[in-house]
């Protein structure tokens, strides 16, 4: 008994339990570390992705398991003018909105890259549209696009006097389509601008100085220095932007719900309308699956753009 107290010179360190020691075995530790993420992604991402593709070939309805019907859903969709309208508008919406976002976003990034007072405050303000829930700002746009009490109509008719009648934003086909694109561009500018600004800030000023000494014009400096060096980040940001614009749902669902006369349906909203609201899960899944080729194309685009420079972590994640 006394021996024990004598030999106890230093407090014995608490030995880690068997579990902790087992975790020091590297393969097990790797397995344990990857398990939660891999489990969540398998059950709620990989499995549903496969299930979605399977559902697209069945006639499943809500509350009834479906039979394998082969390509019938797709054959039906190929002859459905509404589906083609949605494909057309999805592509059109993505193309125009992406162009607008990048043109204006790049311009804004170039403006912000100057020496400005209150720069960080300005940056914080500009990012605001991107932080606020899309549906909530979409409702604000819905109110701005109101047929009777639109503030834009008030400006044009009563203040500036350039029109005699109110704007008709959402009740005819093309104005509704353009109004949605405008709202999408409004929401997308901050993300593009701030990401590109980060890219601009990595470009060394000495390159511009050297070019200036060589007598370059501003356009030449933009064309031969800024643009090529911005290209890698531009490609990543654009891929993300294209993917998330093409699969957009919230904006259209909140503002027009696909109307007037189904002219503003995107593929995602059409899939929701048929699949969840209409109960035709199989057909909805077929519409959703039809989006995959477009997304694969955008991803490959990203991959080859990325292959030029080494991977950049975190950058451009939405």
């Amino acid at each position: 008994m006394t021996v024990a107290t004598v030999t106890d010179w230093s407090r014995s360190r608490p030995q880690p339990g068997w579990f902790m020691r087992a975790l020091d075995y590297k393969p097990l530790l790797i397995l344990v570390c990857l398990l939660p993420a891999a489990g969540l992604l398998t059950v709620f991402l990989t499995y549903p992705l496969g299930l979605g593709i399977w559902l697209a070939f069945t006639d499943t309805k809500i509350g009834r398991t479906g039979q394998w019907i082969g390509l019938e859903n797709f054959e039906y969709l190929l002859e459905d003018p509404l589906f083609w309208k949605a494909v057309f508008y999805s592509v059109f919406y993505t193309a125009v909105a992406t162009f607008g976002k990048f043109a204006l976003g790049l311009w804004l990034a170039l403006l912000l890259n100057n020496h400005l007072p209150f720069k960080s405050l300005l940056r914080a303000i500009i990012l605001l549209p991107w932080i606020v829930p899309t549906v909530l700002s979409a409702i604000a746009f819905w109110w701005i696009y109101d047929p009777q009490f639109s503030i834009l109509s008030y400006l044009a008719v009563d203040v500036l006097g350039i029109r005699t009648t109110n704007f008709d934003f959402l009740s005819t086909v093309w104005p509704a389509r353009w109004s949605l694109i405008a709202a999408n561009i409004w929401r997308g500018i901050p993300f593009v601008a701030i990401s590109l600004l980060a890219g601009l800030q990595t470009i060394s000023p000495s390159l511009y100085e050297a070019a200036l000494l060589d007598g370059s014009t501003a356009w030449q400096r933009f064309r031969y220095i800024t643009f090529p060096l911005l290209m890698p980040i531009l490609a990543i940001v654009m891929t993300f932007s294209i993917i998330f614009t093409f699969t957009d749902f919230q904006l259209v669902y909140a503002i027009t719900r696909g109307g007037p006369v189904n002219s503003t349906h995107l593929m995602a909203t059409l899939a929701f309308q048929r699949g969840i609201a209409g109960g035709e899960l199989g057909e909805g899944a077929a519409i959703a699956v039809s989006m995959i080729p477009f997304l694969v194309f955008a991803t490959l685009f990203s991959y080859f753009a990325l292959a030029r420079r080494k991977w950049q972590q975190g950058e451009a994640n939405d």
Partner: protein
Amino acid sequence: MTDQAASDTPSSATAPAEQMAWDSKARRVVTLYLPLACFVIILLFPFYWMAITSFKPNAELYDFKTHNPFLITSPTLDHIYKLLFETAYPRWLVTTMSVAVGATFLSLLSSVLAAYAIQRLRFKGSQYVGLGIYLAYLVPPSILFIPLATTVYQLGLFDTPLALILTYPTFLVPFCTWLLIGYFKSIPYELEECALIDGATRLQILRRITLPLAVPGLISAGIFSFTLSWNEFIYALAFIQSSEKKTVPVAILTELVSGDVYQWGALMAGSLLGSLPVAIFYSFFVDYYVSSLTGAVKE
């Protein structure tokens, strides 16, 4: 897109002329401050309009002739009062908050472990796991919600907030993992080696060395996940049916929009209140948002 760059210089680009153009104040106002002011006004106007509408009495709201619509003459709290005491709005806020917190916690936990395994416990094929997680981020919710609805139904989670807490990590985990891999990369590996020599276990290293150094990254990932979960719409719309379990964005659109006459005052008040928590949160952590958006490692 190139106007600014192009218009900086006069057409004849001789060196002294350019020098003068560079310093010219008027030019700076036209090419820089004016467009910037337009951008800020356009980007902020919907919020101003949202805020001003929620405090306007109906008489002013629908009468532009006698009241200037850009100002309020007699502000009122009617819309907000109505929202808070005559609808289930507080309840929706609580649901949204708890779903966002739950999903954030879950995804942060699993992505810290995954990022640590991929970046620090280098193993054969770790880069492919990283690539897989990156690809998972490219799968948008719009193509997943139909099969996910059936999965959620099969698991007996339909119409419960738990369904949202478990499905939101599908887009949060890839993002957070990717962000944290970048942060872990910036921490010197020697620190971990020292601890390893001192007899620390791998988990002790993670807890005592790596995580404290990666706190800025954790905050970035956390606030980002919180914001994304707060903003999520399509899953919440598809998986939740009962009115009292809806999240704020869904509830405003499906519960407050009723009939043909829209209560714009209440709708805008709802949108304003739904945006405020995120906006306040955002104002405290602006730098983290910017750094996580751009992947820059601070500290």
